[in-house]
């Protein structure tokens, strides 16, 4: 359903992605693994239309997003949970969720479903989102993306800097989403956590997409991880 076909992306004159490709099917969890600076975040931004590729194509359900304005990605059902959460910290929890609803004109029921996954947010609806704890902020960032009832959700290091209990909670939610048929593209540093929930793993190295392996295979043969420098240690 989501297809990234050999894209090149640059910031100014530095090329960051080189012929980067991936494919994501309905209800699949694909995890991007790669060291810091490999280009994972840039790949997600390119999918969201925030960084425009110089070459290549990005399609969702056959719709070519490559040359459409950035509004096209959320309108076509791509939910984004950016690295570092990027909440609208001045705005209340309810207003952050409202922005998720507005993105695709989804009914209020979407918000209720998102809050059912994170009941703790319900008590804080009128609080400025910048005053939430780190874990709550991450929950809100995910809930905000879920408000647009995404077909695909992009999660960029959602467990970065969180307590273990929070990490487990977010992993559960990701599994729940998959069960409900949402495709998940996950960027994660914690290899062990990834292998438990992902279907496939795609290695990213120096702006290039490398081998795509089944998570089951990696679980059986952990030594394969060693092939990818900077991952798994």
């Amino acid at each position, binding site marked *: 359903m989501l297809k990234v076909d050999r894209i090149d992306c640059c910031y100014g004159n530095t090329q960051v992605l080189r012929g980067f490709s991936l494919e994501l099917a309905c209800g699949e969890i694909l995890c991007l693994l790669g060291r810091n600076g490999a280009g994972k975040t840039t790949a997600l931004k390119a999918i*969201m*239309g*925030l960084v425009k590729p110089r070459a290549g194509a990005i399609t969702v359900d056959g719709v070519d997003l490559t040359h459409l304005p*950035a*509004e096209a*990605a*959320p*309108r076509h059902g791509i939910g*984004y949970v*950016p690295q570092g959460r*990027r909440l*609208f*910290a*001045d*705005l209340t929890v309810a*207003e952050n969720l*409202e*922005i*998720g609803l*507005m*993105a*695709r004109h989804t009914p209020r029921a979407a918000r209720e479903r998102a809050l059912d996954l994170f009941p703790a947010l319900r008590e804080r609806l009128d609080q400025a989102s910048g005053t939430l704890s780190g874990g709550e902020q991450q929950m809100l960032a995910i809930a*905000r993306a879920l408000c*647009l009832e995404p077909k695909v959700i992009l999660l960029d290091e959602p467990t970065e800097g969180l307590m273990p209990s929070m990490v487990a909670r977010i992993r559960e939610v990701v599994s729940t989403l998959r069960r409900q048929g949402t495709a998940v593209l996950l960027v994660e540093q914690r290899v062990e956590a990834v292998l438990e929930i992902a279907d496939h793993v795609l290695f990213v190295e120096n702006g290039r997409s490398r081998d795509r392996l089944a998570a089951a295979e990696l679980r059986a043969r952990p030594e394969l991880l060693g092939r990818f420098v900077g991952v798994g240690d």
Partner: protein
Amino acid sequence: MDFGPYLLLATMEGAVGAAVLALTALGLSLVFGVMRVVNVAHGEFFMLGAVIAWWVAHLVGAHPALGFLAALVVAPIMVGLVAAVAERLVLRRLGYDPEATIVATIGLLYVIQQAALSTFGPDARPVEPPVDFRILLPWFGYSGYKLLVIAAAAALMLCVWWVLARTRVGLMMRATRFDRETARAFAIPVDRVYGGVFALGAMLAAVGAVLIVPIQQAHYLMGHDPLLLSFIVVIIGGLGSLRGTVLAALVIGMSDGVISVFFSPTLAKILATLLVAIVLVIRPTGLFGARAA
């Protein structure tokens, strides 16, 4: 006149100035807050509002109230259009780069000013007040129109607050202001928000000018003081803080009025500028600004 009534008169004059200044500075603050653009041409939008108001009132002729009301509608719309075109043709092409837009809006300042000079001419021209009644106080009579100006400015600021705090458009503006990239990722049409905010900022200045022009006369150089005072207000109020902008406008506008009446307008500007310097040294984020800009 005794000191007491004289002070009251000065305060009332100050309040009229403060009301118009608050509107004008709110426009500058909104543009800076959402777009991070320092609009040096803001005072020219003010001047353009006044000049167009004269022109409309002159064309309508008939009754002063009719001409004024027409000006109150037409002038802000026309100024908003000019601003929207400038935003589209200049600022957007510069990618809203903070430094490039300062230079570009300085250019815009001279373009608008010279355009006004060559069409409107160098003379100051009055617009008749729409109403002509005086409030009779025990010590002096006071123009009823000036009180209307205060009420109208207050009502407009409430409207702006309501739009920002309570509507979807306002929510989009606040989200864009906080994080333009993430706003884009949630389908907020950032380009249109920018165009709208720039036009709205200019329109607020234009409305302020239409309100003042029955008191002050339209002139092609009249944009200087509102620009200086708006900058002072925005810096003291905290860059981008709307509440701070309004409070600072009240302080600066009132003291400008009072000091001008008792001493001289020049001293008022000197003191205000001095206050800016002090605020910048002691509290660079402004008196009411929570965050650094």
